């Protein structure tokens, strides 16, 4: 099966082609020709670009399956979905909840269907992994009337799910019994910790939005709720200004006082005060989240670090493990750990293939 993963970027689709077994054949960018903001796409040019990619690297002109990761599925989507009229209608229903992502994506998907009408397009949602989060974790201390339907969504679900797969591989090799307590640390632009018992998530640091939890490269992370009100009252800021500060000018950028990535925190051999502060705060909050995860699961067997900045995890992991082992009392086995460098597009391809294989009843690859 030839699988093409596509991720929507500003003016292009990041594409990767995989053969059976997850072998990467090619990757690159497919321009979205003729695309203007809210304008129509040139479907003919799009299909030509897709076919060129397939023909150059495989013996067929179209993929057997297109896989598209979607940042947000709300409570509407609790699993993967093939694109058809109904799926698109459900997706468009989420537009107001994710206005920066869904409308553009829905438009591109519509054109993609026209471009390759015979090819099934599977959507994988970052949020569905957490659809089974227990209510006491997913809920907030607000009255239902004040915020109806509010729940913690969690993000990076695809990366967490792949991390859990890696953890289970380690667990089975270790021949230990029972259900592993897994901590998944995804080091992306907006990092996230999830606690997973077996395959069931029980805790996640991401919230209703990725703004909550660990500080990101430019996002504030955990914050006293009253401070949002103080910014309005003390600083006289309006909602746009507050949103700008909390999403673009906070996080590691604010602590280091310049744009930094998580990887940057561990590259500098002589960090200045700002970088040191950023790293200290970040590592401390990860440690606390790990402690929360241990309490949530009643134990900890495996830590998996993944994401774009997973290599930075090799630098922070030893200290984290040391601190957690020190806090564990009387444990029979040490905490296992690994760093997964699997790229996200490969994660999508593998999850899509597994989803098709393990679905009951079996999924049929039918274009919508």
């Amino acid at each position: 099966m030839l699988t093409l993963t596509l991720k929507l970027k500003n003016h292009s689709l990041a594409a990767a082609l995989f053969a059976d077994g997850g072998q990467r054949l090619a990757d690159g960018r497919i321009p979205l020709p003729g695309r203007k903001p809210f304008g129509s796409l040139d479907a003919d040019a799009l299909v030509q670009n897709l076919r060129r990619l397939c023909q150059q690297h495989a013996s067929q002109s179209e993929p057997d399956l297109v896989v598209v990761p979607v940042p947000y599925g709300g409570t509407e989507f609790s699993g993967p979905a093939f694109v058809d009229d109904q799926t698109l209608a459900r997706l468009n229903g989420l537009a107001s909840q994710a206005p920066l992502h869904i409308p553009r994506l829905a438009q591109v998907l519509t054109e993609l269907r026209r471009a390759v009408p015979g090819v099934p397009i599977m959507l994988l949602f970052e949020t569905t992994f957490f659809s089974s989060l227990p209510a006491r974790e997913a809920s907030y201390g607000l009255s239902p009337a004040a915020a109806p339907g509010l729940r913690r969504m969690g993000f990076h679900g695809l990366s967490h799910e792949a991390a859990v797969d890696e953890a289970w591989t380690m667990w089975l090799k270790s021949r230990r019994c029972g259900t592993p307590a897994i901590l998944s640390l995804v080091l992306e632009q907006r990092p996230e910790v999830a606690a997973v018992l077996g395959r069931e998530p029980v805790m996640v640091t991401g919230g209703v939005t990725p703004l909550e939890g660990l500080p990101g490269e430019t996002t504030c992370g955990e914050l006293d709720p009253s401070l949002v009100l103080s910014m309005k009252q003390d600083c006289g800021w309006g909602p746009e200004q507050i949103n700008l500060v909390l999403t673009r000018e906070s996080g590691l950028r604010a602590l280091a006082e310049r744009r930094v990535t998580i990887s940057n925190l561990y590259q500098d051999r002589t960090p200045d005060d700002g970088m040191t502060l950023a790293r200290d705060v970040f590592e401390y909050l990860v440690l606390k989240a790990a402690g929360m995860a241990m309490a949530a699961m009643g134990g900890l067997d495996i830590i998996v670090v993944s994401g774009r900045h997973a290599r930075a995890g090799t630098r922070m992991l030893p200290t984290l493990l040391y601190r957690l082992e020190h806090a564990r009392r009387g444990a029979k086995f040490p905490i296992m750990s690994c760093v997964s460098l699997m790229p996200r597009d490969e994660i999508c391809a593998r999850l899509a293939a597994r989803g098709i294989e393990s679905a009951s009843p079996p999924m049929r690859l039918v274009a919508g």
Partner: protein
Amino acid sequence: MKVLVFNCGSSSLKYKMLEMPAGVQLCGGEAQRIGAKTAEGSRLVHRQDGESRTIEVEMKDHAGAFREVMRRLQADPTLAPDVVAHRMVHGGGVFDAAAAVTPETLAELERIQNLAPIHNPPATALVRAVSEQMPSLPQTVVFDTAFHATLPPRASIYALPRTLREDRGYRKYGFHGTSHRFVAGEAARLLGKPFTELNAVSCHLGSGGASLCAIRNGRSIDTTMGYSPLQGLMMSTRCGDLDPAVVMNLVADRLGDSAAVEALLNKKSGVLGMSGLSADIRDVLRQADAADPDGAPDDTLRLTAGLYAWRIRKYLGAYLAVLGNADAVIFTDTIGEEVPAVRRAVAGGMEVFGVRLDAARNADPGSLPADIAAPESAVRVLVIATNEEIAIARETYQLMAA
């Protein structure tokens, strides 16, 4: 030394006279409905020698309440205070310890009073009233935030631009510090450890506010409340931790009315908001398992109780991970001292951290302080009654003696 401790509310004034250093209570009471504009007027309830007396007397403000309290005390020559000690909720970044009241201190208190707009202003007004009415009577101020002055930057800093962190003072202050310090001191004595070597997590679970504090070598190194008492645990009427984006949406939904959102998050959320029944978790717990006529438990109440304990449990895990080698977990204040079900939900199943509860001792700790951990538990679990007035009086005594 006779220390008269005042604890100010917006329309009340509680007081206790303590003989220090022994900590013997000589009398106490409360001025109620100060500045009342309703049918029921102000009154003073005075307790001494096992008896309680209620005096209906007009008290327009806290200055008037102080006058009435002193009138009662001056009627008994043995009740002349040597010093007045005030509980002050917020010391800002200015006061990191108890302070003697001087004109400079009072000026600073008035400058920072809006950091805690409900609590600080009446307490500050009382300090001024005492200064004016009895200028020769020494006064001290003991701050709820002071114990947390030792928070390291990694625990106290929010990931916000420097201008907000430093110029605006947007940082974690923490509260309940007097209580956390008091019970930690009691825990050290119980464990036979010097206070400066104690590592513990203190769980102050009140019927109103609640917070946890991580204590290393007798110093606060992290706490769940933040810039304000709103952050952290879900409390009786406060929501606790919340996605900042949700706060922005709530303000937008209410057409920019941030005062309405502040009231919602502080007064109409938490146990009250979720349950729709009561702000007291004990009421929710009692009803949560009660079956309806069809035998189904109330899901809303069970979720409320579950979320309440879950938040505390997660933070306990966070702080045990931070400390690494905790000596004790301490439960205190109304819920912490009186509700075994909460202690069980929070500390049960935490063997990974070396915490093992003794079920029978937890169910009935007996007289406090009590150790409810199993004998083989590496971490002791203590139930200790807090006494903020004694703690305030002790700090005052030490300050005056220095």
